[in-house]
């Protein structure tokens, strides 16, 4: 199979399911494995949903590994109010006959990356607990990573709190570890996450499709329309996967980034230094040092993303 080698780290989740469908069906991508992390729903539910959705995508050959059950420091909280109790918006998928591999997600990733001569891309769509643990146990592995695509953080307002996005807020310490590593990172932030949307009519058309993947994608989107009571439903995490398919459709900026760990109101905020002239160099007493640089998706061409999603899930 040709295509770019990627690993997906997920907390499936309605929009993780959309991302899995997109990645598994896209000929441009060769999904070498999927690792699960607790996030939107508890880890066992993440594993179940991941196996079942890969089955829908006719991709049960892709190894699935169970990963971290809790955040490093933060207490566990889920997002079942968005994703439903089962994490898939109440949609019952046929149970996959596949099971998880007999290796922890972190060991699986370390072994796979060590065994391949080519550099790999990791797309992390949940809290960064698995990735941080991987980087702490195997720090040298970063040299084998071509790109780390992360859905997380926010430039403007957050979703979990006024300033923090769910994935980062769920495990701020893990995010801090990851942003401190010297890995080429593309950050798909909450600000763009919400932009790629389909309306009710488009969703109904997807559901009516003969193609099973498209139909399931439509049902997943419909659950968002119902639970969020909005006129349109976003593809969320699937947009982070689409960045690999149509990199020409995104606008990025490289910015210094830190994760706020201590703030009373701001824990889990991704702090970007967007000022035109950085005062940090001049006033080290005032400005705490910034963790690292990251490439942030500032904008995207919505129509290209919508097309990339619909076109690829039916392939």
């Amino acid at each position, binding site marked *: 199979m040709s295509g770019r080698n990627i690993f997906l780290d997920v907390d499936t989740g309605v929009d993780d399911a959309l991302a899995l469908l997109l990645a598994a069906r896209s000929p441009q991508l060769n999904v070498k494995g999927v690792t699960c992390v607790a996030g939107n729903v508890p880890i066992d539910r993440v594993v179940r949903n991941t196996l079942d959705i890969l089955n829908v995508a006719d991709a049960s050959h892709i190894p699935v590994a169970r990963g971290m059950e809790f955040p490093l420091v933060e207490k566990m909280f889920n997002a079942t109010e968005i994703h439903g109790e089962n994490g898939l918006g109440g949609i019952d998928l046929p149970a996959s006959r596949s099971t998880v591999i007999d290796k922890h997600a972190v060991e699986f990733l370390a072994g796979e990356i060590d065994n391949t001569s080519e550099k790999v891309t990791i797309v992390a769509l949940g809290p960064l607990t698995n990735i941080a643990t991987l980087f702490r146990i195997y720090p040298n592995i970063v040299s084998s990573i071509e790109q780390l695509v992360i859905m997380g953080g926010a430039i*403007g*307002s*957050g*979703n979990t709190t*006024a*300033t923090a996005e769910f994935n980062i807020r769920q495990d701020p310490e893990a995010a801090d570890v990851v942003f401190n590593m010297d890995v080429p990172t593309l950050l798909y932030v909450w600000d763009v996450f919400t932009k790629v949307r389909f309306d009710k009519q488009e969703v109904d058309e997807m559901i009516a499709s003969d193609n099973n993947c498209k139909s399931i994608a439509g049902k997943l989107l419909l659950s968002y329309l119902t639970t969020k009571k909005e006129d349109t439903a976003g593809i969320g995490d699937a947009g982070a996967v689409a960045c690999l398919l149509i990199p020409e459709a995104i606008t990025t900026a490289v910015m*210094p980034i*830190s*994760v*706020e*760990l*201590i*703030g*009373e*109101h*701001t*824990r889990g*905020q991704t*702090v*970007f*230094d*967007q*000022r*035109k*002239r950085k*005062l940090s160099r*001049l*006033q080290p007493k*005032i*400005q*705490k040092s*910034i963790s690292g640089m990251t490439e942030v998706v500032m904008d995207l061409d919505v129509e290209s993303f919508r097309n990339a999603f619909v076109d690829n899930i039916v392939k």
Partner: protein
Amino acid sequence: MTSVIIDCDPGHDDALAILLAAKHLDVLGITTVSGNESIDNVTTNALKLVEVGNLTHIPVVRGAEGPLLREAVYAPQVHGKSGMDGAEIPEPTTKLKEGHAVDFIIDTVMSTSDVVLLPMGPLTNIALALRKEPRLRDRVKLMSIMGGSSTNGNITPTAEFNIYVDAEAADIVYQSQIPMLMSGLNLTRQVLAKQEHIDEIRAINNPTTSVVADLLTFYLATSTRHSHDGAAMHDPCAVAAIIDPTLIEFEPMHVAVETAGTHTYGMTVCDDRPGSVKSKEANVEVAVKIDSDRFFKLLIDTLRMY
């Protein structure tokens, strides 16, 4: 005419704010606070300004010489060593009003109805006044402050100078439940004075406007050095919000001041998420948009009155 107290740390933009306010509002007093420069410097600057504007009937009262807890931070990179560099203004002969700014604020608000506070520096004086006389909460009609930001900061990536300098004081003020209009950097950077504004002001050619033009020339130069496209009219925005509220659009938001964060100390955390997910009641009318052309017309027309 609305009665106001201007609490400030002049400051180039404070200077414009005072001159703007004095022709439209009943300015009961000008109180000073350590901020852009030391309390000595900003107090001298305030006295100079009332002389420059022939406003010596307005009492000037000296206030807090530093933040509640932290060491003072000044902004000479913006305002110069004096806090108001750029114009030759004679040493003032006008005397300060005796007493402390905090007591002046308390006495004035308790004895006068419907006073509006216009805080334009760190919120040290206002916080001390609220702590010393809790009844101020019910007496102050409104506060229109210049401070904070609903987007980026200036002194740090997330914090605006006035709030950063005394975030603990700001926390007290933001939690006071006094009706509050907030003109933060997200707003004030929409009104940028450029060379053509300075030329227009200088052409008015009265003794006040030539000083203003000199001050603005210095302020524009430091702003340009900081890669800004013009000199932001920070403090005058908070005054304009009272003189002509139709200039500015506001959105009610819950705003909290971060006092613990490593990277976010001094940030005004503005909850501008869609209504359904907000967990706390709005406590601030956050200014989000200003008509820049009309603002400059108001400012320049006012300067013609000197």
